[in-house]
């Protein structure tokens, strides 16, 4: 038995009690994971995060007192080790992409099986990130547009390898299949995806800053 202090701490912010309980049950069942708090509101989630920053935070977006995106952003900006996953029913583009832009490291389907939940969390801790074909397609499209419209530094454009990986994900290939197709390790695939997410959130921050500047200029001009 691994002592609780060596387990990876998990914070759950989900307002639907049955889903929350199921998640708690699934995570607690894993020897390497430990739920340190499970809350049903944004406020409680923020307090729990500040009290004990967990290793992983699972965050639902539609909370009764606000959007989970705020918490994801807060965690991302806090410089802590905490990494967040957005909870979603369908893994649809809208939900996942907004969370990724705010700084989430991936997503988790609410009805995933116990093993999938644990696997995803461990993968995150190992430095990988969950992804799906639709998100991959979105990322390819988004970075393509950015490359066309604005000259960018290499840090925020996709490398050829990253594009290859996203393309394979789009077609439904799994992490291990991609690894063997491209002759790399499973972990490397995960790291690539994580790096792509980082680039997305960096670019989104730049974009937001530029928008703010533009708005500021317009306001000053008047």
């Amino acid at each position: 038995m691994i002592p609780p202090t060596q387990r990876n701490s998990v914070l759950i912010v989900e307002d639907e009690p049955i889903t929350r309980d199921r998640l708690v049950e699934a995570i607690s069942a894993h020897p390497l994971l430990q739920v340190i708090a499970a809350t049903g509101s944004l406020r409680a989630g923020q307090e729990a995060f500040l009290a004990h920053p967990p290793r992983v935070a699972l965050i639902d977006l539609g909370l009764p007192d606000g959007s989970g995106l705020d918490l994801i952003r807060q965690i991302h900006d806090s410089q802590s080790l905490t990494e967040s996953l957005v909870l979603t029913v369908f893994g649809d583009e809208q939900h996942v992409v907004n969370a990724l832009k705010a700084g989430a490291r991936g997503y988790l389907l609410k009805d995933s099986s116990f093993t999938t939940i644990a696997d995803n969390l461990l993968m995150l801790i190992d430095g990988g990130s969950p992804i799906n074909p639709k998100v991959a397609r979105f990322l390819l499209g988004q970075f393509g547009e950015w490359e066309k419209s604005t000259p960018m530094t290499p840090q925020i454009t996709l490398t050829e390898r990253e594009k290859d990986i996203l393309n394979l994900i789009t077609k439904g290939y799994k992490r291990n299949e991609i690894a063997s197709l491209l002759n790399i390790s499973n972990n490397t695939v995960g790291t690539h995806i994580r790096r792509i997410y980082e680039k997305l959130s960096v670019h989104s921050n730049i974009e937001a800053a530029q928008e703010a500047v533009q708005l500021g200029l317009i306001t000053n001009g008047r």
Partner: protein
Amino acid sequence: MSRKSSASLFSWAPLFGLLFVISILLPYAKAETLRLDRGEFIFDQNQPPPTLPQSHWEPVKLPDNWDLSHPFRGGSGWYRFSFTLDHSPSDLWAVYLPRLSVNAQVFINGQLVGSGGRFIEPISHNSYRPLFFSFPGPLLHAGENQIALNLLGFAQEESGLSPFQIGPVTALKPAYNSQHFREVIVPTISFTLLLLLSFILFIIWLRRRQETLYLMFSLCGGFSTLYTAIFFIQEVPWLTHHQWLWMELTAAMWYVYCLMLLIHRFVKVQRPSLEKFFLIYTIVGPILIFFLPSPYLFRAFGILGLGYCAVSLYILFTIYQYRHQCLPSETWLLFFSILFSALTGYHDLAYMLHSRHEIPVFIFYWGSTVLGIAIAFLLLLRFDRSLILFETLNRDLNSLVAEKSRTLAQSYQERQTLEMRQAVFGERERIMRDLHDGLGGYLVSAMVQAERHPPQLRTLQQTLRSALEDLRLMIDSLDGDPTDLTTQMGSLRERLESLMESSGAVLHWQVEDSPRLPLPSTSNTLQLMRMVQEIFTNIAKHSHACHVFFSVGARHLEVRDDGEGFDVSTTRSGRGLPHLYSRAQQLGITLNISSSSSGTTLHLTW
């Protein structure tokens, strides 16, 4: 031309008038000059000055008009004048001849001091200009001096000599300059100006043939300039004096005729028979005169001119009569400039018909010049007005076009909104149908299963999972590009994977580039996904396969398993196969199923 600039043209007019008056009123120099008007005359072809006995000379008093003093006589005549001086002058002197006709040369004490030009055809014409000959003062001596003047004249053409002056150049020059300006420079300028205006309006007419006014003006202007040429052109090559005179006076007649045509068009009246009558008059009259003996030419033109007097009166009356056709400013400017022109014409006619002692000054070109400028000004104003009208029309047209474009854009927008609404309606209908066919059915089954006693929990769980899967399929089909079948397939895999896992099979996945349906649409993509989902559900339920191979390409999709297989012919009715076939048919896809004991292959091609 804008109204402002035409107004500024008006404001310059008084200044020009003032300059003109000053030039006329310049004081004639009197001091130290001799005015000669009494002498002797003789007809003699000889050169140099004849030395015939005194008895052949007859006394003469200037002005001497040959029409009165020597009717029907022309040719070379000599005048002789004597005057005494106290001392011989040392400075430069001159003879200033204000008026003579047609040409002259001057001898002082037997010495030629100046000539107006050629005395044989084609002769030089000096009828309408002053002559000024300077000579060294020492040519004159103290006591009696003689000045002889050889004059070339024509019978019955107002030939003759007016009093003239002799004196120092400095005393005579100002008067000569002023007269020269009036009688040579001004006609030259007006000739140039009218020629230019006529040319411009002629060019305008060439580009706008329907505007005959411009043609009429350029004709008027052309004839007027031709007539004006008589006043400042001295040397006329090829033409004899009478041919030249005939051409000039004919031009004056044509000028009046064209003026009538112009005025008719200006006030917009049509009098074709009158125009025809005067056309014949203007053609035939001068031709008849051409064949008259030369002494009758001048007088005959005078008589012919009476007809044009009538024309001018008629023109004035017409303008007055139709004054409401034009703007008042236009009418009166035209009326008074024609009146002025007519009065100058009457003045000249009076001289042509009735000789007086003085040699006449013809002033008709003043009238025609003033009138020409006035008409050109009016035409330019009209041109300006039509430009403004054109601009206004253009502006109206533009706003009309803008209005139409706006309406068009609006109706286009309305149509687009309608189309969008229809598209939304179609999409909504599709979602309703999909919900009914998929989710609705599952939920009904789930409810039934939950209501049973005891509830069939295992079946219920499966049904709910199917409901969720179907909902996911729907969301996938709505989320993103419906034609992007690759991503749709990729998304499907996650769910197929868990299905296969639960039945203990391994899924082998192969997706080639961009599969495309024959009719790509959200609905068709969803139908295809449902077919694939159904195929896998069947495999999971019935095949007991260990491996399932899925591959999709641009125009095909294949699912192969290594399960038990089934008899395709007998199982057609069960296992949802008819459903698969009918969906394939709807999508325009060919479905082939082959099955044996070692496995089953489903092949879809499109």
